[in-house]
């Protein structure tokens, strides 16, 4: 199949999700043959280009108008549409990032291509094209058939491991025509101010997330969350009750209406595990819970549990991590 992958960068660096998408695309093509085109913006430097080829992008298409997701989503979607037409791609792949989830439905509508979000594995069948996705916030798995020849897929972060698959470096630049599909044009949108909260980006892609709940008890105890996350090269997060109580420095929380994440390991510290919280973490591969209440619902979902008070458990757990490997681990790929 011909696959087009929408590559996201952040502050000049390739995002880990981009490599996950390329590995997914390569695996999709394993049975059927085909090619993978990586669509990136003009800002992509030499290092990014060679990395894309190393992870299996047969062609790197450098387009004007992509690569900076904070500007105009509609015009980016139009650029992607034109790239899809030009490459005659059957599958368009996005990551389930803030930008991916925003742009993919616009592209889906422009191409009238069936879209499935929240995918985490290869298709169940190629013809007809059916694929599994999580629904009801992870409580159910649905098998969805895409009826259209073109398909838009949004891959859950951390669901596919980036694997090198070097191919020759082929690049092509491409200038998209200005949008012709939007009759009303883009009304004036003026950016007045931007605020950076850069831990947010880390959270959606982090392999390890250390998260604090109301059981953290005090702002002072938040240091345990930070320290463990630092040792494991992970990101920090919190539950809604901890957020409401101001126990954590975060801008948002993980849960049903908050951030939905899919790390390899989720460490729930002092989080009871209300249904709304579990909805945000149900795609985590391993869950470790620390809670003083042995009947807390989080233990129903956790793979490993420690029953005890945060203040007593954490220093010992942190010591055990340090003992396993004394030096702190380098952070994950940015």
């Amino acid at each position, binding site marked *: 199949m011909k696959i087009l992958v929408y590559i996201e960068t952040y502050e000049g660096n390739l995002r880990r999700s981009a490599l996950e998408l390329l590995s997914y695309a390569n695996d999709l093509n394993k049975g059927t043959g085909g090619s993978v085109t990586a669509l990136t913006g003009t800002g992509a430097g030499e290092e990014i280009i060679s990395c894309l080829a190393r992870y299996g992008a047969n062609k790197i298409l450098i387009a004007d108008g992509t690569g900076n997701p904070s500007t105009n989503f509609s015009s980016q979607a139009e650029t992607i549409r034109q790239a899809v037409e030009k490459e005659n791609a059957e599958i368009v792949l996005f990551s389930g990032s*803030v930008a991916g989830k925003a742009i993919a439905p616009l592209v889906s*509508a422009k191409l009238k291509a069936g879209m499935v979000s929240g995918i985490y594995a290869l298709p169940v069948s190629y013809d007809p094209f059916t694929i599994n996705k999580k629904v009801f916030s992870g409580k159910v798995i649905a098998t969805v*058939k895409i*009826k259209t020849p073109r398909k838009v897929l949004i891959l859950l972060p951390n669901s596919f491991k980036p694997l090198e698959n070097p191919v020759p470096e082929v690049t092509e630049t491409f200038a998209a025509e200005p949008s012709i599909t939007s009759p009303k044009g883009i009304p004036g949108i003026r950016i007045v101010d931007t605020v950076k909260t850069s831990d947010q980006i880390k959270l959606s892609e982090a392999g390890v997330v250390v998260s604090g709940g109301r059981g953290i008890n005090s702002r002072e105890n938040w240091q345990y969350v930070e320290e463990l996350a630092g040792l494991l090269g992970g990101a920090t997060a919190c539950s809604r009750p901890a957020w409401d109580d101001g126990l954590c420095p975060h801008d948002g929380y993980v849960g049903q209406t908050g951030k939905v994440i899919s790390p390899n390991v989720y460490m729930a510290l002092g989080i009871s595990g209300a249904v709304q919280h579990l909805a945000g973490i149900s795609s985590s591969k391993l869950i470790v819970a620390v809670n003083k209440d042995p009947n807390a619902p989080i233990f129903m979902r956790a793979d490993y549990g420690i029953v005890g008070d945060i203040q007593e458990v954490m220093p010992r757990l942190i010591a055990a991590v340090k003992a396993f490997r004394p030096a702190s681990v380098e952070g994950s790929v940015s």
Partner: protein
Amino acid sequence: MKVLVCISHVPDTETKIKLTPDRSSVDLSEISWIINPWDELGLTRAVELRKEHPSQIESLTVITVGNGETEGTLRKALALGADKAIRIDATPPDSWYVAIQISELINREYFDIVLTGIESSDFNGYAVGGMLAELTGYACLPNVSLIDLEGDKVMVQREVEGGKEKLEAEVPFIAVIQKGIASAPGIPSMRGIMESRKKSIEVIPPVVADHLTEYNSYELPEASKECRIITDSNYNELVERLHAEAGIA
């Protein structure tokens, strides 16, 4: 300004989901229904906006695509403060179908501000808002966590990768709502409930539309293994296991 809030009628998020015996659909028999949490936050903010700027918000309409069973959910939206509810009488097969139906109404009636939740808590599609923008030609403002009126300007804050942007936006636009837009969902007052009974729910027939995807079968994820309780003496073993199973530490 005319405001439209798109409502998805979804099972209560606390509901335990069961499947029909042939697994071709979700068993809807014992489910209680709610307004999709993100849509409810969007509606709450729209009601607040009108309280804050009564002269500027001329009307507040809610719309859903659904059969007669969704009327309880629309009544709740009316009780929360919407003036009028519209129900497009169809059982929607996918997001594209929903977007087509709602875009027909927007194209016919015009709204200045259209609010949709970023996803629905049942099918988690992340689709309708963006599709609506394409189908109507309205600007799409994704990941919106704040809307305010300052004089005759509409101020919007949206989340972007690694931060936030504050925007001054010209109408019309579609704002895709995420957390933060309202601090908590509104609670209908007794007066709101009484008044909602007098408000109308307009039922309109659907237009002919395709669906691009089909939900054919469902399964419940494997029950997670029993939680292994770690005691003081084997924290080291936990770290080793996390290293072996997930490559951490």
